[in-house]
């Protein structure tokens, strides 16, 4: 018999108060709410045992509990219980089960289980059952959770809530199905698009195989003289997916035979490395889970950025958790295993105050999540994943645009640390050998994340599979991570390691098998969350927190024992060999037998033809605003420019003890664009990280968009005291409609800029990723079809190594009377700027900012000299919002007054509007403050670079900007600025 334990908090019940607030904010009239944690234990225990269990799961100081009886003391109108759907990972239940097993020295058998739910008692005015059901739907996510509502009467009648055991019941399916490809062309295409048909007529979900791919597969199996099995088709679809093979970046593009990746990105890195010669700091680029560069004589640092866009659109919390812990695995999977030391994030979402609904279907039964819900969910996700993993998150940004409303872009990144040598060998080299055992460790396999890889290669629509959602379990991964990078690696227990990401073991095992030339897998050995999972699902499931190893037989025993002692589940599922085939057995039968060459390289190469049209955009007509003080205060409270400190404070950015410059700088706690981390307490060597994103410029020109993203990422590094000679970049392209020649033309143009600017700055790309179909297809509130595409987006992540952390530079002015300088020239470059969006939304204009790399390079080299001489007391580079926002952020950061004369600003063209001068987004500029004693030295150093002293820091708290006619056009104070800067997300 199953039992139910309810735990109530008796003092400081913050959660119940928050619940009341949430319900009230949803528009319900709530007097009282009370939340309880419920453990449903599906195993028989006697009363004494249950008492001990309840005591263990609760805290006698602050909590009470009930065992197998309803709460009779609480006054309520409705009880609302939210739990997980069958098969969804329930981390808390997992811990409770382990605790009970340890407490009573017992074991839960396969059929026995623990489940958790949250029970909320609600008392209000005139509440209806329907309303509470609605409230439940707002609080829960129907894709992963279930809701149960009972009225007070029903509760009394039933003597409480129900005992509900969410079990997955699958029919046994012991075999793989044969799939007939000799079907009419139309049917074949449908198979590729919608998936393999089930017996009941439904489809298994997208394979994302187009006509050419399908015919290549058909021809292969004709040659083999048999029909493919479902698992073979699914496996090919995973391996050949845009998500895994990056077919668009690999394709021949117009007359460029090499394509985007080899012909631009990789080419830049290759040329830079050659040019740098013995100063080349790259050790492993583009071939592993992360890229690796030299840190010092003993250590390598790794970097990787990923996106988790489609899962986050459906389940923002789960999508972001699995995103961040997933990219952590790209670190653990680098070389022989690196330790994650810095997490990064970037959230591109619709404006959170946009409440106009979107629907996935015409009937309006499937409403897309609102931008606010997505925003809050992904913030929570990186909080859960990052904080629980013990990895600091000092670096990140938020970026809002209407184009991200249907499909958000959720960037996550991780820097790792690994010794240059592990057991006397270069740490970044690894190779599975014939005879090595295939071992998977970590989480178990369920239906979660089926078709993630093929799904993200398609636009988001009503047909998007709910099983693409995955729930993260950061602690399972933390155990795994510690066991590998803190123990097994240095014990030399494996030959190769890789992450199980998109495509699950179908990709990780087959990928590793390339290192030796084949593998044989016994699929029934894979540990499952629940019985009877079909073989093709086991093979491609993207259940999280797993890694794959190649382990020499003589080390297997030691490895398995170590994993057991660390609470990490490990299982041998096969063997690597050199047969040139990837073979899978299931229940004693061979269900997959593919040539390795065909599996990996059998896909026909695409050829892409592009077009490019330079569009003319309407210029905003608005006159210069009368009151520029008000304009500045409005601007600084805009979502793209204002404080997001509520995110910074809830992310642990100091764990591991290496924090130097964090996400909030100066006394004013202003969000800065870069961060500095010192990985070793004993040495001053440090890592500077930054990010550049300028996607709005894509409305005008993707070449300059990319150039500005690169310049932003690089000059933020320089402003923070970074070293251009030791800076690496990463490119993350998130494009839209990548089957349209025009979009592909824009892509090619951006790739060209990536090549041009990286080679100029000599900053190599060490890793990158692309996500090509970020479009939302659905319906608006009138039922009209609507397509929302993201603006073509390129995130450039930059990482630099500096020799002395104390030479890093923060953004806050330090002392009154320090001098304020601007370095670099300003032009009328307001196309697609934040200011134009403020003036007249939708009128982008045409004057997109452009980057002169030669000039920039000269400036950055001088800046580095100034850094070396400690001439610069504070620095911040103007980006979105221009000089006006930069000056304000600096003054607020120092909480010191500032007097500026705008007429002193060096300009490369006549600018006759003060607002344009203030908010132009010209690149390659810095605003710095210096010690007045250093004036001469500073000016001499920058003699050949456009620069000017534009004002000084003052003792009082006034912030004044003098305009063209000599009077103050902005006149405010630090307090008012700060209030406006911080008000937008005040209630978050």
């Amino acid at each position: 018999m199953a039992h139910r334990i309810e735990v109530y908090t008796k003092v400081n019940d913050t959660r119940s108060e928050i619940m009341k607030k949430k319900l009230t904010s949803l528009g319900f009239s709530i007097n009282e709410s009370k939340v309880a944690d419920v453990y449903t234990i599906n195993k028989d225990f006697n009363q004494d045992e249950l008492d001990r269990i309840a005591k263990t799961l609760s805290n006698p100081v602050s909590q009470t509990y009930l065992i197998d009886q309803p709460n009779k003391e609480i006054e309520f109108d409705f009880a609302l219980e939210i739990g997980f759907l069958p098969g969804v990972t329930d981390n808390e239940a997992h811990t409770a089960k382990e605790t009970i097993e340890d407490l009573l020295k017992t074991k839960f058998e396969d059929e026995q289980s623990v489940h958790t739910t949250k029970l909320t008692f609600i008392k209000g005015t005139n509440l209806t059952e329907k309303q509470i059901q609605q409230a439940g739907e707002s609080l829960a996510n129907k894709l992963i959770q279930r809701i149960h509502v009972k009225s007070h009467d029903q509760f009394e009648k039933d003597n409480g809530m129900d005992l509900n055991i969410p079990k997955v019941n699958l029919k046994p399916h012991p075999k793989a199905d044969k799939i007939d490809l000799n079907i009419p062309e139309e049917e074949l295409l449908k198979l590729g698009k919608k998936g393999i048909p089930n017996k009941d007529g439904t489809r298994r979900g997208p394979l994302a195989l187009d006509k050419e791919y399908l015919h290549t597969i058909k021809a292969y199996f004709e040659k083999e003289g048999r029909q493919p099995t479902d698992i073979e088709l699914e496996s090919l679809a995973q391996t050949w997916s845009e998500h895994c093979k990056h077919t668009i970046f690999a394709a021949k593009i117009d007359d460029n035979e090499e394509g985007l990746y080899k012909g631009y990105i990789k080419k830049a890195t290759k040329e830079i490395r050659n040019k740098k010669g013995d100063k080349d700091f790259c050790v492993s680029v583009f071939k592993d889970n992360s890229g690796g560069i030299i840190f010092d004589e003993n250590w390598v640092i790794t970097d990787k950025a990923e996106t988790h866009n489609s899962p986050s659109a459906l389940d923002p919390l789960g999508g972001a958790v699995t995103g961040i812990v997933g990219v952590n695995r790209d670190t653990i999977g680098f070389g022989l295993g690196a330790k994650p030391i810095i997490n990064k994030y970037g959230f591109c979402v619709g404006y959170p105050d946009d409440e106009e609904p979107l629907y996935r279907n015409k009937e309006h039964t499937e409403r897309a999540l609102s931008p606010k819900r997505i925003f809050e969910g992904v913030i929570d996700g990186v909080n859960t994943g990052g904080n629980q993993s013990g990895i600091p998150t000092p670096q990140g940004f938020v970026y809002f645009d209407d184009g991200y409303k249907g499909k958000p872009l959720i960037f996550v990144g991780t820097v790792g640390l690994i010794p240059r040598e592990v057991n006397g060998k270069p740490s970044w080299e690894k190779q599975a050998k014939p005879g090595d055992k295939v071992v998977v460790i970590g989480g178990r396999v369920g239906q979660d994340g089926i078709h993630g890889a093929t799904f993200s290669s398609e636009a988001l629509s009503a047909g998007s599979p709910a099983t693409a959602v995955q729930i993260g379990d950061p602690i399972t991964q933390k155990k795994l991570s510690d066991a590998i990078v803190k123990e097994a690696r240095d014990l030399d227990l494996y030959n190769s390691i890789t992450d199980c990401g998109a495509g699950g073991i179908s990709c990780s095992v087959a990928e590793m098998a390339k290192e030796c030339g084949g593998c044989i897998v016994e699929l029934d050995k894979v540990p499952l969350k629940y019985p009877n999972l079909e073989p093709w699902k086991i093979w491609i499931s993207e259940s999280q927190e797993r890694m794959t190893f190649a382990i020499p037989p003589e080390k297997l025993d030691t490895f398995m024992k170590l994993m057991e002692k660390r609470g990490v589940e490990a299982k041998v599922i096969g063997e690597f060999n050199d047969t040139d085939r990837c073979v899978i057995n299931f229940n004693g039968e061979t269900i997959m037998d593919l040539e390795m060459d065909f599996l990996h390289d059998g896909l026909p190469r695409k050829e892409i033809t592009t077009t490019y049209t330079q569009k003319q955009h309407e210029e905003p007509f608005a006159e210069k605003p009368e009151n520029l003080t008000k304009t500045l205060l409005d601007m600084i409270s805009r979502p793209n420019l204002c404080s997001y400190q509520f995110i910074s404070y809830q992310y642990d950015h100091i764990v591991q003890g290496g924090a130097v410059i964090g996400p909030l700088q100066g006394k004013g706690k202003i969000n800065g664009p870069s961060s500095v981390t010192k990985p070793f307490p004993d040495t001053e060597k440090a890592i500077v990280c930054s990010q550049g994103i300028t996607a709005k410029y894509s409305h005008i020109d993707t070449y300059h968009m990319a150039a500005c993203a690169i310049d932003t990422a690089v000059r933020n590094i320089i402003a923070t005291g970074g070293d251009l000679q030791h800076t690496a970049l990463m490119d993350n392209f998130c494009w839209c409609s990548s089957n349209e020649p025009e979009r592909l033309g824009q892509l090619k143009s951006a790739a060209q800029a990536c090549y041009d600017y990286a080679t100029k700055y000599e900053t190599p790309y060490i890793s990158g990723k692309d996500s090509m179909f970020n479009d939302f297809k659905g319906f608006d509130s009138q039922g009209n079809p609507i397509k929302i595409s993201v603006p073509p987006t390129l995130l450039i992540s930059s990482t630099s190594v500096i020799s002395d952390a104390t030479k890093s530079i923060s953004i806050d002015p330090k002392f009154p009377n320090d001098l304020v300088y601007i370095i670099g020239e300003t032009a009328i470059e307001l196309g697609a700027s934040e200011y134009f969006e403020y003036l007249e939304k939708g009128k982008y204009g045409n004057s997109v900012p452009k980057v002169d790399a030669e000039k920039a390079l000269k400036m950055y080299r001088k800046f580095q000299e100034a850094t070396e001489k400690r001439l610069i007391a504070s620095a911040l580079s103007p980006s979105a919002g221009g000089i006006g926002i930069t000056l304000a952020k600096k003054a607020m950061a120092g909480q010191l007054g500032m007097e500026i004369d705008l007429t002193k600003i060096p300009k490369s063209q006549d600018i006759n509007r003060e607002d344009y001068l203030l908010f132009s987004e010209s690149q390659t500029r810095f605003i710095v403050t210096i010690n007045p004693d250093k004036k001469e030295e500073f000016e001499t150093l920058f003699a050949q670079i456009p620069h000017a002293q534009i004002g000084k820091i003052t003792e009082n708290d006034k912030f004044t900007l003098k305009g063209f006619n000599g009077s103050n056009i902005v006149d405010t104070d630090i307090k008012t600025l700060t209030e406006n800067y911080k008000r937008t997300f005040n209630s978050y």
Partner: protein
Amino acid sequence: MKPKAIILTGYGINCEEETAWCFEKTGGEAEIVHINDLIENPNRLSDYQILAIPGGFSYGDDTGSGNAYANKIKNNLTEQIINFAKQDKLIIGICNGFQILANTGLVPAIDDKYGERQVALMRNKTARYECRWTWLKNTSKKCVWTRDIDLLHLPVAHGEGNFYAESEILNKIKENDQVAFKYVNEDSSPANQKFPINPNGALEDIAAITDPSGRILGMMPHPERFLAFTNEEGWELKKERLIREGSALPKDGEGLKIFKNAVQYFL
């Protein structure tokens, strides 16, 4: 001989490396040991003079922060841990480690009831994880770990640090001089529950408590995250001042004082 510290880890503890470094830096010897290895051989605990349970996210805070890890200790190591606590040895629990000590009943151990849960660290009043710097006032004369410290600047990073005890226990904690740190303003004036000076809503602004002997310390703030000069919030301003004065920049962080006190206790 250098005093030996055992630093427990496993199941989501994540500050073990920097905690170990702090003991070594201040003259101790530190060994990081997975709790399962200690359970396998519990008697090895007697090799050490100091036991540290570092910060982290053991079991993802499931069933209450520190609870599941504490249960693991109680189910497998009760005798050895209580025995350790009663000797002239030192124990520290930082953040998650404090939550574990509280759930294991090693602090405050009022009426010498070691092993009984008497206080709780509840969800922050903001209902959110808070990572920020706080000022701490040493209010205990008996605590070994905080000797010669008056005011200390340290960061907190936790979701459940809201200290709570019933009034009878609280009174005894105070009467016995067992409050080690309180959250205060930079000028040492009381936080009086005001956020973010008191970052979690802790009763009477309590940030750290000891057992009756003063040898066991549980604290929410993280001394091991202020191990270098450049760790401190606002170091950039201090740096600029020192440079303009022509002074050298310090290297160490003030969080090390806590560890130094422990190591010195045995020298």
